[in-house]
């Protein structure tokens, strides 16, 4: 991947100023990085707060395993810089376009195929600088691995989709790129594949991705050369191009094209959940995260999907809320008590509702 040099621009002062004005005038803001994730969540009406100009690596010390970047930095540029030092963002953030930014990746909190083994976006956030409703730039967390001083506001911001404040800078824990990798495919029926995954999951094997689709169990092994080779020999199967995982991560795989009337849903389920009793052909389901994350193309309505997920302790998110057949409420509604505390938090941190209002739920 060839990358241009990362522009080094700190426009935090101007961003703070715009937030202050919005606070005073009670103007809703739509926080925009690369605008590649606007499809995710409810539409936001508001003045654009453009983050893309706020870019650059503030500090990076590979030996410390920590990088601090401005939120508008392109994800691809950061990853290229880390790769130069044989390091990576271990949560494999999806990229839905070249303009995809680091801030957007953390705000949406999405993680790629490695998530069940390595952790989610929030697990790698060590600290942030946040622009508050009053336009103040404040620092939470830090650039150290362990830090339990004060509440963990940085992790709360991951996945809050900009509804509680603006992410200005983010410090990540980074990890070395594994020395060896091998991906493989095994012909297995769904039931056999799920049993096999449960069995493999209890063993200390170097598995870092596991998907099932169309009669094939797809696995990625990563780690030291010796263990990857030994596991490869043990599991057998046909080799799989490593690019498959990027296609899956970024939804560029052919599966993610919906037919007319179908919406794309993400089902997030407890590990080892059986196939759900839903009227969906097997070809329209893609199992990722060893079965904990299932992509579904369907015309079934939101309640039917959500009830099925909730019955096993999971939830369903509509990835195409703006398409025909999509759900107006992309995220599963919260129960009354949890929602009350969401509203309280929003009221404390964004009293006038200026930060991405309605992006998660209509009420806040």
């Amino acid at each position, binding site marked *: 991947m060839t990358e241009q040099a990362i522009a080094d621009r700190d426009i935090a002062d101007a961003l703070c100023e715009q937030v202050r004005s919005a606070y005073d005038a009670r103007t809703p803001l739509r926080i925009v990085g690369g605008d590649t994730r606007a499809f995710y969540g409810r539409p936001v009406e508001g003045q654009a707060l453009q983050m893309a100009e706020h870019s650059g690596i503030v500090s990076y010390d590979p030996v410390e395993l920590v990088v601090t970047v401005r939120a508008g930095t392109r994800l691809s540029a950061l990853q290229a810089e880390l790769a130069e030092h044989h390091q990576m963002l271990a949560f494999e953030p999806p990229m839905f376009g070249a303009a995809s930014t680091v801030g957007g990746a953390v705000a949406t909190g999405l993680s790629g195929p490695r998530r069940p083994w390595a952790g*989610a976006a929030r697990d790698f956030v060590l600290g942030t600088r946040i622009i508050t409703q009053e336009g103040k730039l404040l620092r939470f967390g830090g650039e150290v691995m*362990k*830090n339990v001083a004060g509440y*963990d506001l940085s992790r*709360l911001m991951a*996945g809050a989709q900009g509804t509680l404040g603006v992410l200005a800078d983010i410090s990540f824990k980074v990890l070395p790129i594994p020395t060896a990798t091998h991906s493989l495919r095994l012909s297995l029926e769904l039931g056999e594949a799920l049993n096999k995954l449960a069995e493999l999951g209890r063993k200390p094997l170097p598995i870092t991705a596991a998907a099932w689709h169309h009669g094939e169990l797809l696995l990625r092994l990563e780690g030291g050369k010796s263990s990857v080779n030994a596991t490869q020999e043990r599991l057998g199967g046909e080799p799989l191009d490593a690019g498959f995982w990027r296609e899956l991560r970024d939804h560029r795989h052919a599966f993610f094209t919906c037919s007319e009337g179908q919406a794309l849903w993400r089902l997030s389920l407890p590990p080892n959940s059986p196939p759900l009793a839903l009227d969906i052909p097997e070809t329209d389901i893609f199992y990722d995260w060893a079965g904990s994350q299932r992509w579904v193309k369907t015309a079934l309505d939101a309640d039917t999907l959500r009830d099925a997920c909730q019955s096993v302790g999971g939830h369903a998110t509509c990835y195409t809320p703006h398409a025909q057949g999509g759900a107006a409420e992309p995220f*599963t*509604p919260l129960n009354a008590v949890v929602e009350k505390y969401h509203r309280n938090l929003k009221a404390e941190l964004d009293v006038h509702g200026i930060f991405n209002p309605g992006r998660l739920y209509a009420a806040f």
Partner: protein
Amino acid sequence: MNILFDERLDGELVQRDKSEVLTDLQQAVPDMTLLYREEDLRPFECDGLAAYRVLPMLVAMPDKLEQVQALLKRCHALGVPVVTRGAGTGLSGGALPLERGVLLVMSRFAQIIKVDPDARLARVQPGVRNLAISEAAAPYGLYYAPDPSSQIACSIGGNVAENAGGVHCLKYGLTVHNVMRVDVLTIAGEHMTLGAESLDTPGFDLLALINGSEGMLGVITEITVKLLPKPETAKVLMASFDDVEKAGRAVGDIIAAGIIPGGLEMMDKLAIKAAEDFVNAGYPLDAEAILLCELDGVEADVDDDCDTVRRVLEKAGATQIQQARDDAERAKFWAGRKNAFPAVGRMSPDYYCMDGTIPRRELPRVLKGIAALSEESGLAVANVFHAGDGNMHPLILFDANQEGQLGLAEEVGGKILELCVAAGGSITGEHGVGREKINQMCSQFQPHEISIFHALKAAFDPQRLLNPGKNIPTLARCAEFGAMHVHNNELPHPELPRF
């Protein structure tokens, strides 16, 4: 002493007559154990930070969730503060009682509800001991990764409340990385489930927020943790150095070689001597510092990594490198490290354990600063260090029976934490702020940041009834004690009185 609750600085508490509260709670929760006699309250006057002691007004020991709920509802209605306590092993005074508050002891909730080997999850009550989870998971080849030194005694509810760490955090994370779901009761007695057995939940990540919130946002009633397959093998290398700085650099070199050790610990000469005298771990007494490097995983990889680390250590100037020959020797190497605190405790009538974190590159500078503080104060300091993740545990040796020494130890401790903050680190890596580091919070955070913490607290507990006086200082306290940050020569909150 400023460490005990001071209404002038920490906020007013509702004044209630003890017998009135006792009668009220006895009626509201008739079947719950409620201690009120001084001799019954005495064992609960402190947690693991024994230097600070306060007799609580009452101690509640529920054994049913309905009792916890009823108790919280009553305390909420009466405006009586509630301090939650687990096993009481915390080192920062997070469970230090309040004279005017109820101490809610959760230790009777000690059931392991379920171990699910296929989902690799364990559902447990908050009073379950940390190590008991790994013991229950062991028959399935699984374990619970975070292992604070107190793991034989500390309970998982407290681990979540403090976001506890241990010696394997660099590779396996803190408590927050290993908890899937937490059930809480709010101060109003409402039940909430945060997180899930699935890998994410809709809405805000309140699960991340509750980890490390030190009992300030809710009372934890149930926890689901992630279990990991036990590594096939673990091997330990011990390297000696004739210079602390060289040892510090070797830590960075190991990481730079692309290796994330399961554990990477460093001890200085005084800590080595203490540990060796105590458990005969086989530590070299002539070394200025030792590194313990544990590599775990699949046998073949571990062997490769051991070779790499050995080469790195040689190049970094290690004077001696030993690899534990078997599990027994490995356990012996670790015994010295895991017993470092009690070992130092044998050398001195009292010791005060600090918990700062720093970027690893700052280690030589901070160690020099600590040495200078030690010399200046005349108090010896032994250094034990989770080197892999930059978490220092300087142990300040003192004698509380000597006039002024406790105060001096606290002062040295405070200055060490300020060194950590100045180096870009934190005042606490895993022990929590509690009551102990309440003043140092003012040097780590600006008043505006502290105000945001207050806003978070207000979202959950606007009356500030859960564990008041812990974790987050008031701005009045910072104005009086803290090294308040002054930016652009502009004093924040000029309206606050400075005592």
